[in-house]
């Protein structure tokens, strides 16, 4: 480009000399020359630059501490958690592992509208990318720690269909050495006192009755193993992290004023979409920060409105024996700020679901909590029809929706996890 400009300048100068009057110097941005106006395309105000920086992965703070899980950063726990994550032995039919729905090859999701384990679940598999940065887990936030989330599907009849006692027995039989290297010595758990079919999980009445028939001390023994099982899985899952995407490299380039470089990193259609995303389309009202989420719960007026979402999850998490304030948590109560100051306004959260991360969003259709939309086009069309103080998109043209879609595509990057 520099060479072309030089040639044109010489040409302009020599023509001016020949004709004997000064030639206007062609602007570097002249459309007629076919050259891009890099300033107009990639220059941003100070305020916009700060906003772009806040969305870039370079703004992602270090992996947050998890005071509820004393083993969160123990490499042995991470290695054990990885074994657990991929082990289909923790399921009723020996075929379902965490990785059945959270498949590494497809960004730790399954590309299905509803998760499929032993049966069909009621909601879509959540992406695990950057999950350690969440305050609340599941679409409705019914758990407040990553490890207490990880153990819920194990004893859900539609997911792993396993039981809490079977989980403890399996760890005793198959993982005793690895478990004891990380956690305490495993207590003896007898099949008489801890019958394998006992569990308080969702959807299995017989298992619940067997669980209730157990002695409190036996339930406590099993609960401790079950909690540690979750803590090991969490030690692995918390390292499933996004790596720089074209958007992040673009932000670097515009910050260092390398506008020619910036122009090669994402398409001009995507740049137009980015300007809409941070500007008129107001997407950053909810999708903010380097993970593109406020971590909050919103009812955006989706079809399939019968699911109470967050409104029902408030009591679930407050009553969960594995929550931050519970006896199996390693946190001090003053560290449980999210749970202690939970907004319990159920009216406000009717039909509300978590704002998901947009990192790698283009790679994981379908969308929304039950996969209501097959494509990003459908999602964007829906948001154009929606209107509230928060979501005000109906003025966007077809072209602009395509531009936003192109921008979303620039958020796809590699996902790292412990190998």
């Amino acid at each position, binding site marked *: 480009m520099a060479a072309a400009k030089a040639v044109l300048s010489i040409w302009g100068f020599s023509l001016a000399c020949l004709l004997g009057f000064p030639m206007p110097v062609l602007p570097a941005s002249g459309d007629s020359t076919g050259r891009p106006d890099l300033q107009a395309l990639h220059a941003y105000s100070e305020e916009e630059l700060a906003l772009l920086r806040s969305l870039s992965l370079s703004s992602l703070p270090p992996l947050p501490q998890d005071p509820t899980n004393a083993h969160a950063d123990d490499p042995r726990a991470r290695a054990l958690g990885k074994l657990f994550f991929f082990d289909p032995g923790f399921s009723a039919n020996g075929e379902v592992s965490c990785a059945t729905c959270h498949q590494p090859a497809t960004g730790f999701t399954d590309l299905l509208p509803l998760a499929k384990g032993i049966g069909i679940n009621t909601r879509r598999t959540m992406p695990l990318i950057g999950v350690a940065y969440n305050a609340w887990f599941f679409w409705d936030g019914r758990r407040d720690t990553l490890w207490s989330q990880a153990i819920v599907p194990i004893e859900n009849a539609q997911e792993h269909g396993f039981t809490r006692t079977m989980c403890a027995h399996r760890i005793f039989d198959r993982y005793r050495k690895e478990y004891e290297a990380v956690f305490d010595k495993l207590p003896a758990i007898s099949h008489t006192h801890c019958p394998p079919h006992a569990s308080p999980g969702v959807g299995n009445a017989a298992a619940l009755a067997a669980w209730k028939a157990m002695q409190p001390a036996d339930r406590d023994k099993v609960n401790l193993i079950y909690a540690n099982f979750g803590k090991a899985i969490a030690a692995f899952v918390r390292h499933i992290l996004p790596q720089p995407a074209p958007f992040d490299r673009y932000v670097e380039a515009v910050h260092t004023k390398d506008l020619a470089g910036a122009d090669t990193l994402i398409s001009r259609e995507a740049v137009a979409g980015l300007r809409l995303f941070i500007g008129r389309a107001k997407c950053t009202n909810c999708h903010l920060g380097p993970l593109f989420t406020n971590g909050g719960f919103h009812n955006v007026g989706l079809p399939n409105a019968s699911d109470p979402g967050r409104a029902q999850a408030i009591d679930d998490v407050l009553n969960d024996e594995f929550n931050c304030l519970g006896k199996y948590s390693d946190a001090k109560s003053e560290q449980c700020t999210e749970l202690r*100051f939970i907004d319990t306004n159920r009216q406000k959260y009717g039909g509300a679901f978590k704002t998901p991360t947009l990192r790698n969003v283009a790679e994981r259709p379908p969308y929304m909590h039950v996969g209501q939309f097959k494509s990003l086009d459908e999602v964007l069309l829906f948001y154009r029809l929606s209107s509230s103080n928060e979501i005000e998109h109906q003025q966007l043209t077809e072209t602009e929706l395509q531009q936003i879609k192109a921008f979303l595509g620039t958020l796809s990057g590699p996902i790292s996890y412990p190998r």
Partner: protein
Amino acid sequence: MGHPCPSCPGKMTTAAEKPADVPQKPTDASGYAKTMTTKEGKFKVAYTSEPEAMPIGQIISWKLKVQTADGKPVTDAAITVDGDMPEHGHGLPTAPRVTENIGDGTYLVSGIKFSMPGWWIMTFTIKSGDKTDRVTFNLQLK
């Protein structure tokens, strides 16, 4: 065009649906003062934030200093907290409350979390003896 789910109980309400006494965005810096007199002039209230910068998406706490109109510390106040974003029709994602009466008219307000940048208001209702009054602080967060 209305909300696509007007009957949804948890839908994002609009500012127009909020009760009367609609807050007005300040037009100058004095509107964002950290020391204010309550609406009916019964108390003088000042806040400091910890941390001072008020980062988005993190739980922070405030210290609230309450005095009578003539400057005496109010040490027996019952205080309730409400945060709102008037232009967006939503409040805080948390439910903050006073967790400690530190003494000398100072109260610790814990559990404040601002979910996005922009104009926020924080309203405190203060009751001491037979006196009740209310104060609203405006904040412009980045």
